[in-house]
């Protein structure tokens, strides 16, 4: 019985130690990412038409945010490809081509990472004054819904096309990795109203398992894990599908977070 109690205590200590180790390295990596972000965006460009300042004056802060947002949109409009603007204070997600809004969607809800509030003000404005580039994506739907058809050898093999099934049966959830290191998670809102709830849970769980695996790997090799701040966005299913399908592989994304 005594041996059993000792075993129990050792297990509890091990559990606490593992949790502490994982938490410590994760917190260290968060702090390191904040420092890296600040140094990456801290230097002022001499060519800039305006140099951001750190101020407690809320009216100037608002002006700087507006300026950063418009600058980023103008920059994105220089590209030929379709871009996305996420304006969180207005809860709108706009698809744009050359600066023209071609589709406007309502952001049903969102959750910003605390990272946004923890980084240096000037660095944040600078990051927001340029569009982010999508560097990778994962999704529950294909980007290009390609169907392969083999040509008939002669007219006897030919069958006219059937009416395509346009019902939205697939759950729409996707993740964009961006050049600034921020991950954008897009989920369809109200998945429980359809059969998509379980699919969304599986998509989310798979992503968490992947991150968890990377974390364990880092913990047991004593390396700092990669931390990526997240922004989680919920959109109507149709809007989410439209946005994912419309954007090219390396799309530009403009953010307004305040």
């Amino acid at each position, binding site marked *: 019985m005594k041996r059993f109690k000792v075993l129990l205590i050792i297990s509890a200590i091990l559990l606490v130690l593992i*949790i502490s180790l994982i938490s410590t390295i994760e917190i260290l990596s968060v702090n390191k990412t904040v420092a890296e972000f600040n140094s990456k965006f801290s230097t002022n460009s001499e060519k800039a038409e305006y140099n951001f300042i750190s101020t407690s004056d809320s009216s100037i802060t608002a002006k700087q945010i507006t300026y950063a947002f418009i600058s980023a949109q103008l920059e994105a409009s220089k590209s030929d490809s379709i871009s996305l603007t996420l304006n969180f204070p207005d809860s709108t997600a706009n698809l744009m081509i050359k600066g023209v809004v071609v589709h406007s969607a309502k952001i049903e809800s969102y959750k910003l990472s605390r990272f946004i509030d923890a980084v240096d003000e000037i660095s944040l404005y600078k990051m927001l004054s340029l569009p982010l580039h999508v560097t990778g994506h994962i999704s529950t739907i294909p980007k*290009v819904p390609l169907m392969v058809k083999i040509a008939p050898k002669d007219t006897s093999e030919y069958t006219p096309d059937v009416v395509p099934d*346009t019902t939205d049966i697939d759950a729409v959830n996707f993740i964009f990795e961006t050049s600034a290191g921020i991950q954008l998670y897009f989920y369809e809102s109200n998945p429980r109203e359809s059969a998509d709830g379980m699919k969304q849970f599986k998509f989310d769980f798979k992503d*968490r398992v992947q991150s968890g695996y990377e*974390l364990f790997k880092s913990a047991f090799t004593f390396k700092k894990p990669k931390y990526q701040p997240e922004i989680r966005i919920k959109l109507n299913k149709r809007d989410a599908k439209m946005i994912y*399908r*419309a954007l090219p592989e390396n799309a530009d994304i403009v953010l307004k977070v305040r």
Partner: protein
Amino acid sequence: MEQSVDNNTNLAMDSTKRRPVIRFFIGLSIGLSSVIIVVLFVLYALSGLKEGYLKTIKVSPVDSVSLDQKQIAKLDNLIKKNSQKFSNLTPNQPYFVVNTTYNRFKLYKNKKQIREGFCSTGSYTLLKGHDKRQWIFKTPKGLYRIIGKVTNPVWRRPDWSFVEEGLPIPSQNDPIRWEAGVLGDYALSIGDGYLIHGTIYKRFLGMPVTHGCIRMNDEDLEAVYKALDFGSKVYIF
């Protein structure tokens, strides 16, 4: 009496035999619970906890840099100038927007929507021919301009239209390639062989069924044809 003593001894022996098994299962469940706790902690609790330590940066009045009136005016002017520049990107002239995911169109004039409706766009079919040639039937995305306008268009059937029906491909000048009446009353070209035209397959409007062109019903096509001119912008997403 002797038998009863024997029975008691057997029971005691059984219970001593069972103890390591019970201990093993208790140990196993503790071990498993520990693993589950760690996994759940990493998967769900840690994501919130790790950022919990981050401090929100608030600029103190001591560190705050202030702008003088001249600098504030400069910032205001920049915002005004860039907002105007951005607003000017949206044309005042009529323009056309096509949504290929849900096969809808919108027509704008003076920056206001004047018409919307169903259309048909590319089916995203990859047609593989027997001579190793292949075609993807998709509507291109991005900004295009109207580069041609015709009334009563006649369709010149490209190679794929014969291949997909299992017909032999005729020569380039063969009159069999020309087909009248299938593109409606009007056609507007956006380049690379892509047209905005009418259709005889009206039941398919709102569906992705075309070979890349944009099909519309007769009334919508007429309105679009009349509104858009050479050089008008067509936004496809």
